[in-house]
Every structure is written in structure tokens, then in C-alpha cells.
């Protein structure tokens, strides 16, 4: 029932927040589509393999979010992915609780994927060294969002995630991160971020 994050997913989330420190940012997490529902499928954690940064600045408007969800949904189908989660970092550093908007988007994703997670980024603990995971993960239970502690277990390989994220932050890779907003500004901007994916692989 619980989700786990790969290095690439965690990395891109943090790079997105680092690129726009003065704005709220949000995005989606995708997981590989499970071939069939196994009987004991609730014991295998869902692995979020990638992250799609969406917007920065004013988040709470509907039309572009719907466009993004539609386009990303198609991309997911092509790549046998499914939208498995939503992340958000609020504008104010000290504000790391999910707001009404985050819950709405999370609920919408949960409609299509029952084990969807909502992730809030805690910017107060955001450091270049990435010494600890700075996320709070919320699972959807009976129409409510329940908070779960985020520790090394929530990652496929925390040590790797920590090392690589820190390296990319130091190298200012966030300057070249593309979110969906950047894509709408110029269609040539690629929101799948192939270059950053390459850098992550390169450092693995």
C-alpha cells in the first residue's frame, strides 16, 4: 500500500523546489503499471520511478492542470506508467501542511489509482547536503489523508538518493530542470527532463 521513491523521482522533486525557492511548486509522481493485481499486492510497495514537475507560482488554477493531467496521462499510457502521486512545496518555507488544493488534486489522482500518495516537501529542512529525507507522505484512507513518517525505508536506495541529489544541487542542475510551465512557455522545453535523467544515471 505504501509508495517508495527512486533516486530519479526524489532528485527531480527537490531540483524543482530548488529552482524556484520563492514560489510554490507542484508535480506528479509516476509508477510502473502493475501487470496484474496479485492476491497479496498490498504487501509490495509501489515504486515511483519518475517525477514530472508541473507548475511554479500560482498553483490553484484548474485549466492548465487539466491540460497537464491529460497530456501526462497519454505519455504514461505510452510508457506503461500510471500517475501514482502528487507533490507540492508551499510558497512559505514554514508552511509544509497540505492545503485544500493539494488534497483536491490528490483525491482526483486517487480516483484513478487507489494507492495514490500525496507528498509535501518540508523546505525548512532542505539543505545542500540532503542529510535527511524532507518529505511528508500522506496516504488516502477512507476519504481522509493520513500522514506517514518518511524515512530511509521510503526510498529504493536512500544512500544513493542522498548522494546524487546533493551532487546535482551543488552542480546547480536545477537551472536546466523543465517543468510544465516552462513547456507551455516554449513547447521545445521537454518536461520529461532527459538530460537530468542522464545525469542521475551517470552518477549511479
Amino acid at each position, binding site marked *: 500500500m505504501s509508495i517508495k521513491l527512486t533516486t530519479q523521482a526524489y532528485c527531480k522533486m527537490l531540483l524543482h523546489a530548488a529552482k524556484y525557492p520563492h514560489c510554490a511548486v507542484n508535480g506528479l509522481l509516476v509508477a510502473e503499471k502493475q501487470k496484474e493485481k496479485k492476491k497479496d499486492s498490498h504487501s509490495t510497495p509501489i515504486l515511483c520511478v519518475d517525477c514530472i514537475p508541473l507548475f511554479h507560482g500560482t498553483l490553484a488554477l484548474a485549466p*492548465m492542470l487539466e491540460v497537464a493531467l*491529460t497530456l501526462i496521462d497519454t*505519455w504514461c499510457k505510452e510508457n506503461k506508467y500510471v500517475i501514482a502521486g502528487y507533490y507540492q512545496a508551499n510558497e512559505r518555507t514554514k508552511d509544509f501542511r497540505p492545503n485544500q488544493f493539494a488534497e483536491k488534486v490528490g483525491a482526483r489522482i486517487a480516483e484513478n489509482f487507489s494507492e495514490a500518495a500525496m507528498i509535501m516537501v518540508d523546505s525548512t529542512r532542505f539543505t545542500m547536503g540532503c542529510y535527511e529525507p524532507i518529505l511528508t507522505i500522506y496516504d488516502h484512507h477512507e476519504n481522509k489523508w493520513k500522514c506517514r513518517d518518511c524515512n530511509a525505508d521510503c526510498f529504493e536506495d536512500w544512500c544513493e538518493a542522498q548522494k546524487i541529489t546533493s551532487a546535482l544541487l551543488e552542480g546547480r542542475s536545477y537551472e536546466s530542470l523543465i517543468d510544465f510551465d516552462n513547456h507551455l512557455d516554449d*513547447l521545445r522545453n521537454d518536461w520529461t527532463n532527459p538530460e537530468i535523467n542522464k545525469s542521475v544515471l551517470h552518477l549511479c
Partner: protein
Amino acid sequence: MASVSEMYDVTWEEMRDKLRKWREDNHRNSEQIVDVGEELINEHASKLGDDIWIIYEQVMIAALDCSRDDLAWTCLQELKRQFPGSQRVKRLAGMRLEALEKYEDANKQYDSILQDDPTNTAARKRKISILKAQGKSAEAIRELNEYLEQFVGDQGAWHELSELYINEHDYGKAAFCLEELMMTNPHNHLYCEQYAEVKYTQGGLENLELSRKYFAQALKLNNRNMRALFGLYMSASHIAASPKVNATVEKANVKYATWATNQINRAYQLAGRGTKENKCSVKAVEEMLESITMS
């Protein structure tokens, strides 16, 4: 570490001109401003002439953004020395206190500016920013409304207020602020497009139709505004799919949505150059087209 001029092979004049461009465009690329500005100040101060003072101001604000209090302090001291007793410099000192989260001291600083000059808009707006930083959105909104009653022409303030309302999900009031902006800036496609987004988010058939009209207006003003194009498609297809519209309205909106999809397709083809990711987006757009023409 290599200097900016070495890494990018630029002259000090080009660095100075870049800073000016960022100043004019009001870019908040603070890390870059600090990199370029710090080198300019340290290595080429004597060549900058009177430009140096505005550069000190620009670099100081960027330094605050990057938690470079050492650099901010240096810039502030230079400005204090050159312009003793200046309200503008006092405001910068206040901003530094804000960056250090010393909000009470910052407020005192701004209050002292306002005592000498009650019409000082910069100080008033900094006080509102402090409320925003402290999470006191309701108060910030109230103060900003009061400010706008006096300074009705301050477009930046109207825009800030619209954002505050959007964050509080008060889309009606956000729309009002954007209406003010559209009235005074009828050729600004961004305000049109944002207004359309707010109307769309408000929901309901009437608002959807209004949003479609304003997305179309934004496109008229700038036919490369992708958000307006996508918005036109989304609003028209939602209207067409609504059970409350008659056949004529449905047909018209299917036409608009189809037109929009074709334009979107074209835009992606132009941008795509056959890259893998864009092939995907093009496919998604094609699916969008199929879904409307099927109904």
C-alpha cells in the same frame, strides 16, 4: 572557482548590460545576479561610474534572496555612505531585516519611513509583504485592499492581490482584480489569459463561456500564447459536453475546440522536429481531437 567572465567568456561591459536587462525585465534570477554582480563590484567597480549604485541595490536584493548576508551588508554600507538619510536605502535596510526574519525591527524601520513620508508606497507594500511572509493572508488582503483604495493605479499591487485571492480560493475577487488590470491594460494578453483561467476555475456554464471568450481574446492579442490556446480547447470542449446547452451552442463549441486542437497540433509540429517526447504530446493532442469529433 573560475570567474563568471572566464566561464562564459564575457567582458565586464557585457556583464553590466546583462544586469541592466535583468533589472528592466524584473527577473528574479538571484543566484545569477549575485554571481555576475559580485564579480562586477569586486573587480570593475571603478569602471562602472554612477551605474554602480543601482547595481549595489540590485545585487543587495539578490543577495538577500540567496542568504548572502555578507554581500548584502557590504552593498548596504556602500549605499548608506553614498546616500545618507535616503528613504530608498532605509527600505533596503528594512528588507535585510525581513530576510533575517526580524519582522518587528523591519516594521519599525518602515513605520519610521512612513512617519516622514506617509505617501511612501514602497514602505507600505513591504509591510504587507511581512504579513504575507508571516502567513497572515487575511490581514495582508485587508491591508492591500486599503492600499489600493488610495493607490488605484498600482498594477503590481492589483496583481499581487489577485494572487492572494487565488490562494484563498476566492476566485470571484481574484477575477475583479484582473478586470481592473485588463481595463487599464487592454492589450496585455497575459491578464486576459489569467482572467480566463480564474473564470474557468470558478466553474459553471456562464463562467466557462466567459473564460472561452477571454482565452480567445488573449489569442487575438498574442497568437502564440499556448495557455490561451489550450484554455480555448478545454473551455469549448467542456461547454460542448455540457447537458445544459442546445444543439447550436454545442456545434459552435465543437468547432472552436476543433480549431484549437488543430492549432495546438501545428504548434507541436513546428516545435517538435520529431523528438520522441514531442511525438507523444502530438499523439495526446490527436487523441484530444478524436474525443471531441466522436461526440
